[in-house]
């Protein structure tokens, strides 16, 4: 029994490839739970970071420093009255957020957190991702249509036009990254997500820096297009309140609206994961070839523990700085417990790093490797998440026609150009 | 105090007694006959360069025979001079609109109509501007009591007695 479990801990292939449905299901559940938790954490981070950008504090009351705010929000939304417009198309109204959610979550089946830590490594992975994430548009359009009111309809149409136009640029940028995977001995590239990261590993360079500045420009195009894909600032006309239309989710209240928000944040994480996989080396730690002495391996493997220790340190500082008034007693205790929890996790990670620091095939080593892969991947994705929030705080909003102009007249030609030049350079270098 | 200036001389010679020019506390104003409106306004804009119509307003003197004073306050950028043009009209009479001369006058005359009930001929869209469309009465007239509007409107529209 133990063998059965541990045998899959260090499996070199994903459960999908191994045909192991049980583990695939477990991975799916882990991803589902993980994404939901990350979305809640994103919600908190967004409110806090936005507030700090705006010289205010953000939620402070619900839980220490607002840490329980997302839970309170989720509860509130669940308990809200479910209002359905009487003239709305009932079935379509009900199914629209589900379509969006479906599109956002299905992408996670191909996202690789490690060389074998994915639900399934399809050999058309990136194509699958592009196709499925386009389904999100359908969710928005059906939501706007089903609301039977012309403000949501206008918002939905605008949003769908925006998403469609930036998908073209996104796709072309992705293709130029795929081209770079074929710069190996056999001359065949791969569409599989894990294969792309392994190609970066083989070539010893993140595609971000490959044929500088070509990879960089392609990355920038993708980075801008992904912000437009997810309807985030500065491309957030669809959800902007101070514009005329209030967007496609006007008529949705309570849990239905939170499903849209869940889909939006999940999509954000998904496209950031794509960007990380394609250009930033996926799960690889920085400088795997340059600094490949065992001592560097050990130092880099300490990073997860150090991160959690730093977080625990922040929480501890927060606890110490909280006023010692009786009003804050519960918050102080709560934050202290949270700090201790983080410290405990840091300790566990440290143990795993120390015990498994040699790369033999023991359980500890395999666990350490797995944790490292997931950690570096999530760290890079987190940087993107923070950037999303930073953009929202800083920039004004694009007007719709300007948005479309940028998508079609600026991004598309540049991405086409990058694609062509990458192909030429690739042939020449060969 | 009488106001003398070349411009005054010109208009006095042109219109004779229909134009009076005075000055009070350093501010100059014409008092013209109603028949001269809008010609004199047009002349002031075209010849004397009073291209900025600062305000159009009215004053109600119920004891007078011609109850309303309609006042235009004009300013010239080139001359850096501000003058007033006043005319007197009777209750119920209408007065030509100056919207064709200065586009500013559009809302200003609407407000005068709204508050006093003075109709402006030739105004493109003379309807109430500040008060709701169905309002009865013209508040800034002297015979419009300050409390009466409250009681009547509240009674009709909210169905209760006003607390005033």
């Amino acid at each position, binding site marked *: 029994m133990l063998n059965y479990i541990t045998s899959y801990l260090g499996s070199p292939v994903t459960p999908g490839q191994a045909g192991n449905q049980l583990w695939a299901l477990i991975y799916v559940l882990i991803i589902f739970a993980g994404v939901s938790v990350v979305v809640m954490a994103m919600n908190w981070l967004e409110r806090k970071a936005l507030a700090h950008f705006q010289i205010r504090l953000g939620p402070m009351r619900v839980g220490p420093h607002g840490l329980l705010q997302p839970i309170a929000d989720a509860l509130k939304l669940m308990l809200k009255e479910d209002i359905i417009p009487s003239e709305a198309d009932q079935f379509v109204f009900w199914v629209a957020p589900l379509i969006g959610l479906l599109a956002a979550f299905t992408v996670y089946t191909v996202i690789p957190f490690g060389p074998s830590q994915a639900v399934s490594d399809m050999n058309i992975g990136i194509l699958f991702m592009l196709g499925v994430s386009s389904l999100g548009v359908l969710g928005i359009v059906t939501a706007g249509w089903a609301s039977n009111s012309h403000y949501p309809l206008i918002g939905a149409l605008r949003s769908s036009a925006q998403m469609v136009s930036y998908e073209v640029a996104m796709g072309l940028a992705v293709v130029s990254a795929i081209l770079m995977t074929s710069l190996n001995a056999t001359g065949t590239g791969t569409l599989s997500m894990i294969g792309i990261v392994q190609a970066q590993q083989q070539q010893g360079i993140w595609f971000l820096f490959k044929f500088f500045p070509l990879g960089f420009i392609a990355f920038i195009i993708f980075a801008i297009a992904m912000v437009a894909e997810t309807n985030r600032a500065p491309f957030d006309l669809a959800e902007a309140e101070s514009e005329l239309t209030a967007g496609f989710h006007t008529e949705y209240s309570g849990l239905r609206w939170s499903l849209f928000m869940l889909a939006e944040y999940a999509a954000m994480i998904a496209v950031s994961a794509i960007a990380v996989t394609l250009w930033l080396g996926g799960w690889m730690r920085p400088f795997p070839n340059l600094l490949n002495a065992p001592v560097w391996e050990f130092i880099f493997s300490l990073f997860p523990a150090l991160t959690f220790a730093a977080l625990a340190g922040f929480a501890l500082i927060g606890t110490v700085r909280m006023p010692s008034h009786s009003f804050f007693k519960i918050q102080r205790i709560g934050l202290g417990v949270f700090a201790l929890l983080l410290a405990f996790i840091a300790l566990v990670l440290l143990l795993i790093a120390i015990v498994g620091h040699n790369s033999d095939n023991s359980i500890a080593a395999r666990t350490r490797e797995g944790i490292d892969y997931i950690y570096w991947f999530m760290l890079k994705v987190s940087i993107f998440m923070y950037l999303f929030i930073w953009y929202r705080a800083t*920039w004004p909003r694009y007007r719709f026609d300007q948005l479309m102009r940028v998508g079609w007249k600026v991004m598309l030609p540049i991405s086409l150009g990058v694609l062509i030049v990458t192909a030429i350079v690739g042939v020449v270098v060969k | 105090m009488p106001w003398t200036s070349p411009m005054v001389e010109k208009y006095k010679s042109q219109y004779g007694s229909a134009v009076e020019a005075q000055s009070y506390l350093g501010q100059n104003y014409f008092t013209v006959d109603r028949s001269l409106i809008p010609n004199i306004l047009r002349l002031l804009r075209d010849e004397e360069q009073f291209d900025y119509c600062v305000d159009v307003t009215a004053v109600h003197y119920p004891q007078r025979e011609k109850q309303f004073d309609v006042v235009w*306050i004009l300013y010239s950028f080139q001359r*850096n001079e501000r003058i007033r043009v006043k005319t007197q009209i009777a209750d119920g009479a209408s007065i030509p609109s100056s919207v064709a001369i200065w586009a500013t006058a559009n809302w200003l005359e609407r407000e005068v109509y709204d508050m006093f009930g003075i109709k402006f001929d030739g105004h493109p*869209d003379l309807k109430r501007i500040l008060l*709701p469309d169905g309002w009865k009465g013209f508040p800034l007239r002297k015979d419009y009591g300050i409390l009466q509007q409250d009681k009547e409107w509240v009674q009709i529209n909210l169905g209760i007695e006003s607390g005033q």
Partner: protein
Amino acid sequence: MTDRTKNDHAKDVPNAAAYVGGTKLDTSHLELETPEHPYLDSNELIINMGPQHPATHGVLRVILKLDGEKVLGTECVIGYLHRGVEKIAENRTYTMFNPYVDRMDYVAAVSNGLGYCQAVEKLLNVEAPPRANYIRVILTELNRIASHQLWLGTHALDIGAMTPLFYTFRDREEILKIFEKYCGARLTTHAFRIGGCLYETYAGFEKEVKSFLKFVAPKIDEYEALLTTNRIWLERTKNVGTISAADAIALGVTGPVLRASGVKWDIRKAIPYANYADFDFEIPTGENGDTYDRYLVRMVEMRQSLRIIEQAVNGIPEGPIMAKVPKVIKPAVGEIYHSIEAPKGELGYFIVSDGSTQPYRLRVRPPSFVNLQALDVMVRGMLVADVVAVIGTLDIVLGEVDR
């Protein structure tokens, strides 16, 4: 459970018929262009930007006639905040009316008070003493900065940049603190009296004003760093809501809007009042008369205000702060019109006195009212998203529009 399909809420509101469809849009007076290619389905929508706005301008209703996204014509429905200030003035003495004046343009209350007090002083033919004038200038210019800061925050918010709002409001707090220390109120200050100022400057006034000047200059640079060269801001504001100088003069637009269209006119320089002639400052003008120019003009105006305040606070003369004004103010029979350069434009008071203690007629010439008229001209041919930007750039305060 009520049957939600029937729209019979109207029966619960007495006399609702007067209000349902009471503002039926009669577009015959708007010279609307009909689209050249009539489409199968007419794209003309009439959209109502209702009295309740997410943008913080007050209760303004704008009815837009759209062809798809383009605006063909607008109609503004105002009067939601009409409180009958002019009628009230006829029933209050001159001194009693002073606090009412702050409530019109509540953002720049000190300017309103300055205009009114100076108008009545003119009617009485008295001059406020120089010390009072210097104090008035300092407070008025501080209020100008505060008003422009509020304008900047809300305008940026309308266009989508949410952060400058918080920065400007935080910095505005310092000005409001000075007001509070001076006269006890932050917003509706009632700072001046007819004949001068009632309150002497408090101990430390000069020091606080000087430290405020040092505090706020880098903050204005901060706002500029966020917006002035930001590509998205430029795209949203350049060539949006353009009005030519000729149109502006014809429509009677004043204030920064007029100056941004290229007309270098400021009442503080043209017809100086309250010792403004003693101070050395410049009048910024723009070239195109678009939203971006109005933004730049107001930013420069803020800096010029700092200049004026610095000169004023360094040279406050000694002397009385109140002129010899009778206890019961009974001006002689006559009329007066006096206007000042409020942050929004030319704010004028036309007072007719019949020799009694109460004004016979008090007319306020509100800059926002006249500027709002220009909205129609400015948004023709623009897109819907620009309407919000243009309303923001006109810097209207509904309290002043409606009085």
